[in-house]
């Protein structure tokens, strides 16, 4: 294992021709990450799995270059295209793809015997170590069909690590799992992190999972990255209104820059006739049109009584949706805020409510 962080630098262009009713598709991305866990997030059909397949060598890009830890996997110019078995990419499918005709120990043995890494003795030591670490010793003689979903996950991760891979590729590993199994998976992923320094590229369409696991996020739409960056940055600062809409966790209000005061590091936005103050906006001019973007969880809903303080805007309610987190109150401009059942008792029956937006949460996206 290398002590340095392993870098992924993959430029991938893959064109799929139109077949029957399926339209032509082009994947065109540049994935560059030093992060421990890089998450490719996007809706179905965004090209996430195709990107993973290109990294693993199961699909050959039309153009591009794939470098992992300075090892060239693919180069469209020179014609280098390493076979999947030489790439040392651990690949985990959504349904784990444990070999059904083998026991769990045989699955791991197959991986150990196939691996092109260390000595035979070392691989077998590693196999036994992984069976122990992933609590599989008692299950080792069972076949995959005899295991629960969580046990299969652990077995698939352990099998993937036997050969000491350089890159771990996980394709929607928690799709279709209930909350308890998801949590169990996140826990075993921690064990994986302890056992392997290989960077993980994880594909998901689940925003919660993306937020929980990602160090680095690539938001994908129609075969392209619409925004990349460290998780906090991407979620705090969506690059444009389309990204913000796709993420679906923001309230977006049409807004205009009303005042700018660089000396006091303040800007004032006009949001539906109400002034909302935030940090100074560099490079913007008074009169610029755009959107105020506020995370739904950062805005507070209050009854419309008493004086209206700064950074409070009045909004008409349009409905409610009870949810596991509380009551989601729907507001005009397609906005929403979730409040507890107790807090909702004070808001019930009001047509107009106050939404308080802290200055720290104010983010302006220009049109």
């Amino acid at each position, binding site marked *: 294992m290398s002590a340095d962080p392993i870098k992924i630098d993959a430029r991938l262009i893959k064109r799929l021709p139109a077949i029957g009713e399926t339209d032509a598709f082009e994947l065109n991305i540049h994935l560059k990450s030093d992060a421990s866990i890089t998450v490719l997030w996007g809706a179905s059909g965004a090209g996430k799995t195709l990107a993973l397949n290109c990294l*693993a*060598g*199961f699909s050959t890009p039309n153009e591009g270059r794939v470098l992992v830890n300075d090892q060239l996997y693919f180069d469209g110019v020179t014609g280098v295209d390493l*076979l*999947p*078995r*030489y*790439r*040392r*990419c*651990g*690949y985990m*499918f959504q*349904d784990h*793809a444990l*070999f*059904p*005709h083998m026991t769990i120990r045989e699955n791991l043995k*197959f*991986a150990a015997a*196939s*691996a*092109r*890494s260390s000595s035979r003795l070392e691989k077998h030591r590693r196999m036994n170590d992984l069976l122990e670490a992933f609590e599989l010793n008692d299950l080792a003689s069972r*076949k*995959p*069909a005899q295991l629960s979903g969580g046990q299969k996950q652990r077995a698939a991760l352990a*099998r*993937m690590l*036997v*050969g000491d891979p350089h890159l771990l590729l996980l394709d929607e590993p928690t799709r279709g799992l209930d909350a308890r199994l998801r949590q169990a998976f996140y826990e075993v992923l921690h064990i994986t992190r302890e056992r392997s320094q290989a960077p993980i590229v994880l594909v998901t369409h689940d925003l919660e999972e993306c937020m929980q696991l990602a160090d680095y996020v690539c938001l994908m739409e129609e075969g392209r990255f619409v925004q990349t960056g460290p998780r906090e940055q991407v979620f705090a600062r969506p690059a444009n209104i389309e990204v913000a809409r796709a993420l679906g966790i923001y309230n977006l209000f049409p807004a205009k820059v009303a005042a700018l005061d660089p000396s006091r590091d303040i800007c004032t936005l006009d949001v539906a006739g109400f002034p909302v103050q935030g940090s100074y906006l560099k490079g913007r001019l008074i009169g610029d049109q755009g959107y105020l973007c506020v995370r739904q969880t950062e805005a507070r809903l209050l009854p419309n009584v008493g004086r209206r303080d700064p950074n409070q805007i009045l909004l008409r309610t349009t409905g409610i949706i009870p949810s596991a987190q509380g009551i989601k109150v729907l507001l005009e401009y397609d906005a929403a805020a979730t409040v507890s059942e107790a807090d909702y008792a004070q808001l019930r029956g009001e047509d107009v409510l106050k939404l308080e937006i802290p200055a720290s949460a104010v983010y302006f996206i220009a049109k």
Partner: protein
Amino acid sequence: MPSAPPSIDWFPLWLSLRVAALATLFVLTVGTAIAYLLSHKTFRFKEALDSLITLPLVLPPTVLGYYLLVLLGRSSGLGHIYESVFGQPLVFTWQAAVVAAVFHSAPIYIKGARTVFEDVDYRFEWVAHSLGASEWRTFTRITFPLAWRGLSSLTSLCFARSLGDFGITMMVAGNIPGKTQTLSVAIFDAVESGNGHMARVLVLIMSVTALILLWAASYLSRPTSRASHNG
């Protein structure tokens, strides 16, 4: 008093079993390799090759037999090579009956085996490759064991079909009693010569054997509980 039925010559049965066994062995090795190539590889004229393999299923046996006579006859290149290696011509020998049986049974086996290989979930093979396994190792340890039931069912069908060839065998191996006369040819011969007893016995043997082989094929191809659980 009715006369005792004439004794039955069992040579055609043993010859047919030997011919079918050898033909099945050949189809099993070469046919499996071709089916794997068709199911897993992309190459030019792949579908043309598939059509060529299917051709014997639709061509009349006489046409196929004619082609084989031209291809393997004493005046052909292949016939010459065979004769120089084995010291005897190929046509009108029991070995020619094996060739006839191969052409009669291979299309069904190869077409079926291609489907069986294509039905093996590609993700198992991908995972094996990503774990570092070579193509051969992936085939022997993953693809073949997962395709085994389907292939053994097809083997059973292949044997049954090899046993039953008539037209191509007549064309390339002829009807030489005690030398190239297989079971189906012997039945034809018995009916022609009015040996009803011999015809009835051989027909019965053929029917029961075919039935057993079909049952075996169907038994082997039934979904197992494990497969149905894995869905």
